[in-house]
């Protein structure tokens, strides 16, 4: 049977096509190498601790990632989180697990239409059990004033944070939302990204407006 033999301890022969030495593979860069400095306190925690930050709008090219990190951190504090999303699409569960989310204790309410989403949000917030409700339903539904007010009041009364993912053009109609955060990603090196969180609307006066974090892409993304 054919085979190639190598000098013990080194690969001195030319490698066959498609085979690379491990030392030639791109390595992950450290956060410091791409110029990201860890803040004393993550911006997510600053916003969470801010009094009355009960309805938060997330948009940008990394909004879903930011929402997942929010979920993982809430679970890490022992809090209960619920997600509401559309039947046609959802997060990719292995990526949530990679970010430390406990899938077993995360209920996902899957809705078909706007009225069902509103009912789900209302029911979850009124229970007072969930400290964070994430609404991942980026459809062009204007969140009219009455709904905005209702959710704000429910959030304040029950101590629930409503975090909903939005799109640029849809967010223009959401005037009463006190906090709007942009989450964007930028590729810095193969597989390494700079994640920027920026508060673009701040009616609560947090002080901090921008923060950067290092992130890596899912398997296969350069």
């Amino acid at each position, binding site marked *: 049977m054919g085979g190639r033999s190598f000098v013990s301890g080194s690969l001195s022969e030319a490698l066959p096509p498609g085979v690379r030495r491990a030392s030639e593979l791109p390595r992950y860069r450290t956060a410091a190498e791409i110029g990201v400095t860890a803040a004393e306190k993550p911006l997510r925690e600053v916003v969470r601790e801010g009094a009355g930050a009960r309805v938060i709008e997330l948009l940008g090219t990394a909004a879903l990632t930011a929402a997942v990190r929010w979920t993982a951190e809430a679970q890490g504090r022992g809090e209960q989180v619920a997600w509401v999303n559309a039947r046609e699409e959802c997060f990719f569960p292995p990526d949530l697990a990679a970010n*430390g989310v406990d899938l*077993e204790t995360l209920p996902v309410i899957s809705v078909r239409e706007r009225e069902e989403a509103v009912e789900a949000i209302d029911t979850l917030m009124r229970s007072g059990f969930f400290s964070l409700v994430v609404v991942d339903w980026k459809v062009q539904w204007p969140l009219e004033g009455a709904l905005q007010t209702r959710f704000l009041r429910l959030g304040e009364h029950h101590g629930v944070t409503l975090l909903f993912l939005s799109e640029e053009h849809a967010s223009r109609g959401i005037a009463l939302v006190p906090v709007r955060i942009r989450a964007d990603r930028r590729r810095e090196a193969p597989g390494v990204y700079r994640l920027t969180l920026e508060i673009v609307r701040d009616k609560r006066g947090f002080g901090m407006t921008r923060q950067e974090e290092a992130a890596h892409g899912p398997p296969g993304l350069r």
Partner: protein
Amino acid sequence: MDRLACVSIPAFELQLLIKRFPSWQEVPAAVISEPKPLGRVIAANRSALKAGVRPDMRYAQALSLRPDLQAAVIARQDRLTAQEEIIALLYEFAPTVESARFAHSTMFWLDVRGLSRLYRSYTQWGEQLLESLKAFGFLGACAIGWSRLGTFAAAQKPGAVRLFDTPEEEAKATRGTAVRYLPIAPFVKERLTHLGIRTVEEFLQLPKGGVRSRFGTAVEGIYAISAQGEGVPVQGSAPREPNRIRRVCMPSLRRVTPILENIGELLREVSEGSRRRLSRIRSITVRLRDESGAVRVEELTPAEPTRDHELLRKLCELRLSRLSWKEPVEEIVIEAEEEESLLDQQELFIHPPKRRPERGRRALSLLQARLGSDSVLRAELQDSHLPEGSFLWHSFEVQRLGRASLAGSLGASIERAIQEQDVNGSRFGGEIQLVRRFLRSSGDNRGAGRAKGSSKVVGGPYVVSTRWWLTPVEREYHYRELEDGTVEWSYYDPERRVWTLLGSVE
């Protein structure tokens, strides 16, 4: 002497665990007493045993041997419910069933007098019983003989039926049975070995008074079996009659309001029945038969076991008010699945927390009733090379909300420990990973994967080739960045020459 049979379900909790988590069949898995580092391993499967995990070991110690050990607690109520279901199944094979429990094995004695007239042989009877048990999800062993002890000692090999033709044959086999085949705790087997006791005959020669003090009540129970006089008939535990009520509607009902009124009255009676039986209702099944003979079945599960008929009526109203009937309803049947009403004394003294789990369960239960049982879900990861097969959606078990899961308590704390690494200056191993959005009906996205306009490849093609043992699947996965910054995730099937859009990176 009359014949009797013994059916044993070895490693009962372990079998319950695998029944609940079928994907744990091939990975190291164990049943533990509590989801804490100091919890004890109660039972472990072959993969875990190979890695050195042993019963009675601390959970933390087991994890150190095998960090990927899957483990869970089997609640007492789950065990009792499964036992009741098995008894109900066994009653289809014998008129009297007596249950016993020894060291995490569950045993049953069955009165088999006269059954040889219904089957070709006792062996055939036993084989059919084990087949039914297997179809129900449990592996059991069966022995048919003349005494409790003899059949008990012989019913150890799963899937096998042992038949003793004569009492003498049984007695001889019993005397020589090794003690290690008895369902007793490992530490007891070790002590007996140190005492030089190796067979059942030698075990029965121990002084009766010392067995309990030295080895505990479980071993005393086994000892007591032999002390029972021959000829004591099997003492049956009668199966509970289901809590079911039926009403024929005369005249038939066309509209929702009178249907719900009737259901409300029936639920009041069902709840009262549960109260008399000292049970609580875990779920109800409502069957509505119309004049054409069609039957509509709705199953409703309250957030917590309850006897509150108003809550059950409310759930029915939420579910049924959206429905319509072409034909009038002429019969309503309601059946309740119950559980023992256990009083958790700790709940009497703990101050109610600000965030009350029962309210969360109630909220999810209401949403299930209103939006459908397939609307409240949880994701479970699967072992698959294909991304599309790497997870499944399951209905969220509302009653487990707020009760710490294994991952929720131990796994999450391990994850937190990893995440608390100082990112600045550390060897960055990827604390934050970008998350992908997944299009559920990706089959409808065929042809949509080839990005329109200009785009650049930012990942792939990565070829995944799998399922060669069934229908080979080969796919090339790509990431493409569009002009607006969107990163699409798609794959190309070279055999079908079709692009499919899976989702995007957000």
